[in-house]
């Protein structure tokens, strides 16, 4: 196995392998980040942080269905001050840590980035694409090219860390928005956030199951949509792409990278296959590459394009 090299260099951040824990999955505490890194993730992302603490939506907030998962957690988070305490001394985590930063106003993003600047984060991710939290993302108009440009530019001014802008799969003009992010100085695109929103109704209760009624769809259902987004983005922007959506096997990861992703985010996969999904995916990738005579990730990224 030794001659297969899974490492990637993402905006000058060296990752031992291309699997990244997606934001909002387990990334609530430093202890979880450590555990996920021990289970093989090449990098880990914290759950999104806002200026003030947020309780999020009431339960049920996450529910599974035949084809994936539906969630409306509502960006619960302890706020930037408590987060700065929780995520200190990040060198203890055995993989680069990406901060996820949210806000309702441009200034919020700046305040959170500044509040986290003493922590040893390796990059800042800004999701402008949540489909189910009032005041944030799509519900606050952050998913337009203009807003994306404006927010990214502000964040650019206050950090020298790589900025990843996270986009929604819902928007037909995903490439236009990605270009706006690139123009504003983003260093990578994270594609994609959850899609929809969707709704699941419990027919005996005659009511939507999620307390927020609707939630973002993730997992298997999202994968073909995410792969298409990454395929389109690969042609549209020059900066690298982190492909996220429905990845839970080595084959899925390779598919996403062939579409054009330089690394892959994994969320719902933790549910499908356990916390060691990262190790499993890397093992499967290594085996497939051996069988198919490929020895490093450059032979894979973007090769599905003519």
């Amino acid at each position: 196995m030794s001659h297969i090299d899974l490492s990637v260099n993402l905006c000058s951040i060296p990752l031992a392998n291309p699997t990244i824990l997606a934001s909002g999955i387990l990334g609530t505490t430093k202890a979880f980040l450590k555990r996920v890194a021990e289970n093989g993730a090449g990098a880990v992302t914290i759950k999104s942080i806002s200026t003030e603490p947020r309780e999020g939506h009431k339960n049920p907030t996450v529910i599974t269905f035949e084809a994936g998962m539906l969630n409306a957690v509502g960006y619960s988070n302890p706020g930037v001050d408590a987060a700065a305490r929780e995520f200190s001394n990040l060198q203890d985590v055995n993989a680069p840590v990406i901060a996820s930063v949210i806000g309702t106003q441009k200034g919020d993003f700046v305040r959170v980035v500044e509040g986290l600047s003493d922590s040893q984060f390796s990059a800042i991710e800004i999701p402008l694409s949540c489909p189910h939290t009032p005041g944030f993302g799509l519900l606050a108009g952050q998913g337009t090219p203009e807003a994306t440009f404006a927010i990214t530019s502000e964040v650019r001014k206050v950090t020298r860390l790589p900025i990843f802008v996270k986009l929604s799969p819902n928007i037909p003009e995903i490439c236009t928005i990605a270009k706006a992010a690139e123009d504003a100085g983003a260093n990578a695109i994270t594609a994609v956030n959850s899609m929809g929103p969707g709704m699941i109704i419990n027919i005996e209760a005659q009511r939507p199951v999620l307390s927020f009624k609707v939630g973002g769809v993730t997992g298997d259902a999202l994968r073909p949509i995410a792969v298409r987004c990454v395929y389109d983005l690969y042609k549209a922007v020059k900066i690298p792409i982190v492909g996220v959506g429905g990845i839970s096997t080595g084959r899925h990861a390779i598919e996403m990278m062939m579409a054009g992703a330089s690394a892959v985010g994994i969320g719902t996969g933790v549910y499908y296959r356990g916390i060691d999904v990262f190790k499993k995916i890397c093992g499967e990738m290594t085996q497939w590459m051996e069988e198919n005579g490929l020895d490093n990730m450059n032979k894979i990224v973007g090769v599905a394009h003519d």
Partner: protein
Amino acid sequence: MIEQPTMVKICDIVEESPGVKTFFFKYNLLFDPGQFVMVWIPLLDEKPFTISYMQKDIMGISVLKRGAFTHALHGKKAGDLIGIRGPYGKGFQLHTNSNACVVGGGIGIASLATVVDKLRDVIVIQGARTVSEIIYQKRFQGMKLCTEDGTAGFKGTTVDLLKELLKTHNLSKVYTCGPEKMLYKVFELCKNHGIDCEVSLDRYMKCGFGICGQCDCSGQRVCVDGPVFTTMELNTLEDFGKTTILKTGERVTLGNR
């Protein structure tokens, strides 16, 4: 395992004490003692409760009235529907041939009730603040009681009572559930006596299946990796007995109860 909330009809309600009611419903769910279900009241909320009764195809949960959700549950009548999904988590490991003791503080006894049902030959300690809070008195005859105010049984805490017990009994296993400060003391006491201990922890829960990251205890997901942890595991959990995580995700020092 039920993935999505399934509506079940409450077929019976038993008032165990002024503050605690047991809700029974017909459902045949395979579960291990110590596992829990998420209980849904549509348009309100969904919260975790351990299965406290299992008789053929009738299950029960025993609920202490605390805040909005448990108040609403206490308002339910027989015939009403509630949603359940689960069972979730890792339950207790039962060894029938050991001198076991079950130590329940407050409503914690509900999480231990099916352990007692299964092991049968086991010492049961139930602690409460006062006599009116004691439950399951008919169910578990010969239970050793303790109350803070001395209105029933031993006057003092479950830890004090367990200490007394250890003077005369040779225990090989302790199962416990209750306020975390108490759990920590039980755990320490057992460790000092070389007794294997299994502890059911309580953390704020959302998903219940190990995804949302809400229920952290030193990197363990209490909903999936727990809620029951063994002595060996507890030794590595720095947060145990010290900090917990609020609904916002903020880490706070554990209160005294």
